[in-house]
Structure formats: structure tokens, C-alpha cells
């Protein structure tokens, strides 16, 4: 079977045809290259961190370097990888395809978002090569404003600028989903991935301006000594934490909602079955987006917050956990009586559900104020949010990448290698982060360059796991690249899945569809099973 003669990839080969493209699919690939680059930079920092922590003494790097390492790891991973990764890569590629449109509502704006993102990235890279930053990705004041002597301003500007790319992408998605759906694509006929993209875009548009202003205030305070956050000038250092977490808590949902959307798609496709409780899954995305804005105070239980404020934030944090639990139950129920195939994307989806469940349940520990006091700011927190962000976001992303790779590239990757690396990632991940829960409970504080010797065994386990995890991430790089040239041609619908994206050729033509599709039924309708092999 040959590739289709005309598709978006062979529509021009020059550098200009890529850098000036307005095709959402090509822009998605530009993002793919960029986020992968930042992911491996961030990952390299993590490797050095785990090497340092293999021994109790701070012997591999100096404490200054160590502090810069974990700061840059956090900044790169959070702002330049986890937040943009799914919306900008898979969202960009799929939103128009899934609603049956030719492109996003504002293709030029979409390209501009990529350039803005790259500009932000350049600022941050500049900060990195000229000395780095040591404030932690959280930039807590007054340390970041009066004490740190490192490159805080370029980093803050980098984050500020990148924020605009998120806002513009969010706007673009919202308008596209409202205005460009194919005939018959009613709201409740939309695939769940679109619901999650919609909810994510809302957070982008409502939340990102707050973080943008906040980091700008940091930069301004350093330059002009305003004193917003400096108690010596009558400011309030805790004000910063309120502003910061007002965005950065919802940001967690920016990272995980898209992943949930992917998992819904994968579970439906590989069970060949409608998602159980479609409306509940769809609305739980919106519920998470809204409630997510009301829980920021749970990052500050020990920061001198009043007892009553703490209680309110605590109860709201429990509430926000419920829609996530509802999703997990619905996915599990979807598998009941499905026709389940064990292809790589499904393995990732199952991995996601498992790890996300652990991450979510340990979140309950942290939402319970009394217990939070003990485990917050320790390795328990580190483990918890890596379960959500790495176990959740990255598992979902890799699942999605493998699921839609045949659509993106037109070719299949090596399935055996892919399954193997999914297994390696799962094992490596748990070995890396599970011991950290225990470490945190035993009292090892986070951001420690050196630690008391009794914590060594667990730290060595964690470092060992990290090296396995690292290998697990490298293998897909190799076989995905390899498949671009040598992979088996996939055909338009290799998984036998539903969804408009599978009705067009792989790779799709530049205009996505030869004629505008018309939608006549709900998503995930697979022909009935009666009379077929059971």
C-alpha cells in the first residue's frame, strides 16, 4: 500500500515552506520538535540531580549548581514542556481534523504563537547559558526579588512571553471549536478530546494572564525596587504565593486535562466501544477547569494562612478530586465488555489510569490539612506531582503520540519495540518516584543538595529508577524517527477507530478533507456486535 500522492508533508520541502507555514499540522510538528528539545534539556538536568542524590554528601556538583539544576529542570519541564506539549502538538494537529475543519480559525495567529513560544524559550536558554537561575521554578519572594543574584529577569521574561503563546493558542481553540465544527457536529457529538481541549483553553485564557503579570512583577521589583513583596518596604511576600498559585494550580489541570482527553479517545478506540458516561466525562472536564481556580490556597497551609482559610481550601481541594475520580471510574467501566486490544497506545492509557489514580489518591493526603503539614515541602510532594505530571501528562502524551503517529506520519512504528519501551517507562517511573513517597513521609525535605545518610537507600532506588526511565524515553525517539522512513505504510484507519480524523488519508492532505464531512451520529459508534464473532 503506498502513501497517498498528495499530503501535507510533501506539499513543499524548503525551510520556508515550514517556517512560514500556516498549516496547523505543520505547526504542530514545529511544536513537536521544540517541546522535544526542551524535554531532553529538562531531562538532562534531572539526570544530574538524581546522580547527585545517589550519595548523601553534596559531592558531585556544588550547592549553587544543584539549586540551578532543579530550578532549570522545573522551569523547562513545566513552562516549556508540560504546559504546551499536548495542546500545542496534538491539539494543534487534531482539533481541526476532529471537528471536520480545514484549519484553525486563525492560522496566522497559530504560527505567531509558535514564534512567541520560541522567543520565550530563547530568553530562558539565554538565562541558562549565561549562568542560570537558582530560585526554584516557584520564584518565591523575597528570595527571588532581593536575595538571589542569578538570572531571574531573563527567565521571568521568558515565562512571560511564552504565556502569550498559551493565551493565543487557547483563544484559537475556543473560537475554532465554537465556529468551525462541520455540519452535524453538535456539542455532544464531539469527541472527548475536544471537550478537554476546550476546558484547557479556558484555563489558558483565564489563568495565564495572572502568571504573566506575576512574573513581570518579580522582574519589575528587581529592577525598580517597588516593594510589592518585600516586607522591609511594607510589601507582603505571601502575596506572591497567592498570585503564583492562583495560576499554577490550574496549570496542573492544563497539563492533565488534555491527557485525560487522550485517554478517553484511546480507551474508546481500543475497546471499540462508546465511552461509558460520555456526558459525565465531558462535564467533569469543565468542572475540573472551574474548581481548579478555587483551590490555590492548598499550597500555602503552612505559610501563615489563617486556620479558616486553610479549612476552606482543604474542602474545595477534596471537591476537585471528585470529577477526576468520576473519570477513572468511567474509563474502567468502558473496558467492561469491550473488545480490548493491547496495542501500545492502550498500554500507555492503562499506565496513565494506574499512575494517575495513585497520584490523585495521594493528593487526598495533601488536601487533608492536618496531614499536609507533615508531608508538604518534602519528597512526598515531589512524588505526588510527578505521578500526576509525569505519570499522568507524559503517559497520556506518549499514548496519544503513538495512537495518532500513523495519522501524523502515515507510517507505523515498530510495535514490539514500542511495547517494550512502554513497559520500561512504567517500571522505571514507579521505581523512581514510589520511594520518594516514603522518603517524604520519613521527613526528607525537597530541594536538598545533601541529606542525612539514613535516607540513602531509598534515594539510590530512586536514582536507579531514573536511569531506567531515561532509557525508556530515548527508545521511542529512535524508533519513531526510524519509522518516518522505513515504517510500514499505515493506511487511513489502522486501528479501526471512529472519529473524523480517521476518515481522511494518512497523512492528511493540506486541506484535511477532500470534501467537508457531515456528522450524523454520536462519537464512538462501532457497528453492533450481533451476529459477529464474540
Amino acid at each position, binding site marked *: 500500500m503506498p502513501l497517498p500522492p498528495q499530503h501535507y508533508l510533501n506539499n513543499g520541502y524548503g525551510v520556508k515552506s515550514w517556517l512560514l507555514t500556516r498549516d496547523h499540522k505543520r505547526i504542530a510538528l514545529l511544536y513537536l520538535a521544540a517541546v522535544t528539545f526542551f524535554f531532553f534539556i529538562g531531562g538532562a538536568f534531572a539526570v544530574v540531580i538524581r546522580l547527585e542524590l545517589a550519595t548523601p554528601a553534596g559531592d558531585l556538583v556544588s550547592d549553587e549548581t544543584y539549586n540551578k539544576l532543579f530550578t532549570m529542570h522545573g522551569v523547562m519541564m513545566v513552562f516549556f514542556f508540560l504546559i504546551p506539549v499536548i495542546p500545542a502538538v496534538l491539539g494543534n494537529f487534531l482539533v481541526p481534523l476532529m471537528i471536520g475543519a480545514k484549519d484553525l480559525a486563525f492560522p496566522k495567529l497559530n504560527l505567531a504563537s509558535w514564534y512567541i513560544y520560541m522567543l520565550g524559550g530563547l530568553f530562558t536558554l539565554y538565562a541558562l547559558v549565561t549562568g542560570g537561575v537558582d530560585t526554584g521554578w516557584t520564584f518565591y519572594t523575597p528570595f527571588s526579588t532581593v536575595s538571589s543574584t542569578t538570572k531571574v529577569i531573563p527567565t521571568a521574561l521568558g515565562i512571560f512571553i511564552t504565556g502569550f503563546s498559551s493565551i493565543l493558542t487557547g483563544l484559537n481553540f475556543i473560537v475554532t471549536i465554537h465556529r468551525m465544527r462541520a455540519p452535524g457536529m453538535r456539542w455532544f457529538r464531539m469527541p472527548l478530546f475536544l471537550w478537554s481541549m476546550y476546558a484547557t483553553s479556558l484555563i489558558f485564557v483565564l489563568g495565564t494572564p495572572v502568571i504573566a503579570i506575576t512574573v513581570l512583577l518579580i522582574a519589575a521589583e528587581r529592577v525598580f525596587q517597588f516593594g510589592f513583596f518585600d516586607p*522591609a518596604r511594607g510589601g507582603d511576600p505571601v502575596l506572591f504565593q497567592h498570585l503564583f498559585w492562583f495560576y499554577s494550580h490550574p496549570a496542573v489541570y492544563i497539563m492533565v486535562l488534555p491527557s485525560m482527553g487522550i485517554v478517553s479517545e484511546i480507551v474508546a478506540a481500543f475497546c471499540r466501544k462508546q465511552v461509558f458516561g460520555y456526558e459525565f466525562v465531558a462535564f467533569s472536564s469543565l468542572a475540573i477547569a472551574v474548581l481548579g481556580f478555587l483551590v490555590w490556597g492548598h499550597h500555602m497551609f503552612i505559610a501563615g494562612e489563617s486556620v479558616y482559610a486553610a479549612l476552606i481550601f482543604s474542602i474545595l481541594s477534596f471537591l476537585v478530586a471528585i470529577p477526576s475520580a468520576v473519570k477513572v471510574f468511567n474509563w474502567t467501566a468502558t473496558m467492561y465488555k469491550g473488545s480490548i486490544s493491547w496495542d501500545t497506545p492502550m498500554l500507555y492509557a492503562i499506565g496513565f489510569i494506574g499512575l494517575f489514580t495513585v497520584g490523585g489518591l495521594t493528593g*487526598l493526603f495533601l488536601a487533608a490539612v492536618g496531614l499536609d503539614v507533615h508531608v508538604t515541602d518534602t519528597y512526598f510532594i515531589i512524588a505526588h506531582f510527578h505521578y500526576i505530571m509525569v505519570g499522568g501528562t507524559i503517559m497520556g502524551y506518549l499514548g496519544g503520540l503513538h495512537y495518532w503517529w500513523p495519522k501524523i506520519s502515515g507510517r507505523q512504528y515498530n510495535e514490539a519495540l514500542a511495547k517494550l519501551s512502554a513497559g520500561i517507562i512504567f517500571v522505571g517511573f514507579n521505581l523512581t518516584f514510589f520511594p520518594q513517597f516514603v522518603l517524604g513521609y520519613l521527613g526528607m525535605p525537597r530541594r536538598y543538595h545533601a541529606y542525612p545518610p539514613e535516607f540513602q537507600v531509598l534515594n539510590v532506588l530512586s536514582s536507579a529508577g531514573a536511569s531506567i526511565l531515561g532509557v525508556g524515553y530515548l527508545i521511542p525517539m529512535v524508533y519513531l524517527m526510524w519509522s518516518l522512513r522505513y515504517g510500514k505504510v499505515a493506511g487511513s484507519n489502522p486501528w479501526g477507530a471512529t472519529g473524523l480524523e480517521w476518515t481522511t488519508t494518512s497523512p492528511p492532505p493540506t486541506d484535511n478533507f477532500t470534501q467537508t464531512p457531515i456528522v450524523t451520529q454520536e462519537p464512538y459508534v462501532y457497528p453492533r456486535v450481533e451476529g459477529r464473532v464474540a
Partner: protein
Amino acid sequence: MYFFLVAIAAFFSLLIAGLIVYYAVKYRRRAPDAVGTVVHGGIVLEIAWTVIPLLISMVIFVWGASVFFAMSRPPEETMNVYVVGKQWMWKFQHLDGEREINELHVPVGRAVKLIMTSEDVIHDVFVPAFRVKADVLPGRYTHIWFQPTKPGRYHLFCAEYCGTRHSGMIGEVVVMEPSDYQAWLSGGAPEGSLASAGEKLFADLACNTCHRPEAQSRGPVLQGLFGKTVTLQTGETVVADEAYIRESILNPSAKVTAGFQPIMPTFQGLVSEEQLLELIEYVKSLR
């Protein structure tokens, strides 16, 4: 409580994992073109798995909240110790004038309350063995309390990232038998109590020219001030706690006591955090 939660978490993780693996095996695809059976979503099921987790989480909430309440309310009688954090060390001041760095000696069985502030950035006192942790903020006083039950040496960590030597900002709480503790106390250099150091400072800084024990002085009488409710010129009231006294000294015009002129000069920059604590302790001691 922690282990109750571990049990809940383990139960649900295993339930979900178990179901997923069971379904994945039982319903694995048997023919390439097989599709799943349509199962219609049940509203009862949806409500059940919304409400049950909700109830469980509310139980955890109430439990967590009550633990938190107990933690945030120190008993009436506590042994107070002042703590000043700075990059990168902990300074402790006992009421009887004993000072320590990165080591805190306390007797077993007494409820100890730490009144904490920072000279520079945010730090955090964390003693894992006593399950206590609180941020130490510049310009504010935060409190924690604990009651050690077994003699020994316990880790004290800084748990809020504070710069280069954050991981070196560690110390130990040394819990001693009361008799050993007495011996330790008397072994230290007798500098006089914290309050008496404050009294000396009060005279050196000429506070006593305005604040005298008799009424009709230029400044309010400070005897019996601590813990009292003060009426301000604006008609508002404040409780005279550590933070109020601190503010009165550093920024007197922010809250002017009713019936007085704002003539008190600011002492911002003239007194260190530690001297402030001495003054506060002296004002507290004026009964």
C-alpha cells in the same frame, strides 16, 4: 491517620488496577474485526461513584481538619523559645537568656512553643519526628508547638527553599530529661534573662523617656499591655500581640493608640530582629 489514608489509597489503587487488568484480559480482542458490546451508561452508577468518593473524602476532610485544629492551638502553659532564621542558620533564644545556634535544647514532657521570624527570606522550621512544620516569614511571627515525649536528638530541617546553602540550614532538637536540662541551663553563660536584656535596651534606646509606669506620660503605659485589646485613634481595635508590638516599634504611625499624638520615632533599622524580640519579651514581662 496517615495509615488510614494509606489503606484507602491502596484499596482504591488496587481496585482500579485489578479491574483494569481483569477486564483487559477477560475482554481482550478475540477477532480482528470484533467490536465492544454497547453498554448503556447507568445514571445510578454515575451517582454512586460520585457520592461515595465524596462521602469518603468528607470523612478525611473532617479528620484532617480536627488534627489541624489541635495542632494550631497550643496549650495554656508553654515554654516559649524565640527563633530567628537567617541565611543559613537558626538562632534560638530561650527566655532565661540562653542562646543557641542550630541546636535547640528542651526538656522532655514540656509543651514547647516556638515564636519564629526571619531576618531575610522565607525559611521553614520542620521537625519530622514531632510532625510540625511552619514557614518562618520576614516581618511576621509564626508559631508552632510540640511536646517531646522521648529524650533524644531529632532532625530540624529548613523546609522552604532559601538559597545556596538551604540544605545546610539544618539543626537538631535535643530533648533531655528535666534534670539534665537544668544542668545544661546552669552550665551556659549567664547573661541574664531575655526580658532583662530587653529592659536594658529599653533604657539605652530611651524608650523610657516616653513610656513610664505612671499615666500622663508622653507615651502609653506599657504595663499589662500584652494580650490586651488596644483602641486606636481610628476607633478600630487590635489585640496587642507580638506582631503589634513589633509594628509599634518599627512603624509607630501605622497604628496610633487612641488619646496619643503620633510622636514616637521609628526604630526601623536601629534594632535587629533579635533585639526586637528582647524588647517584645520585656514588654510582655511588664505586668
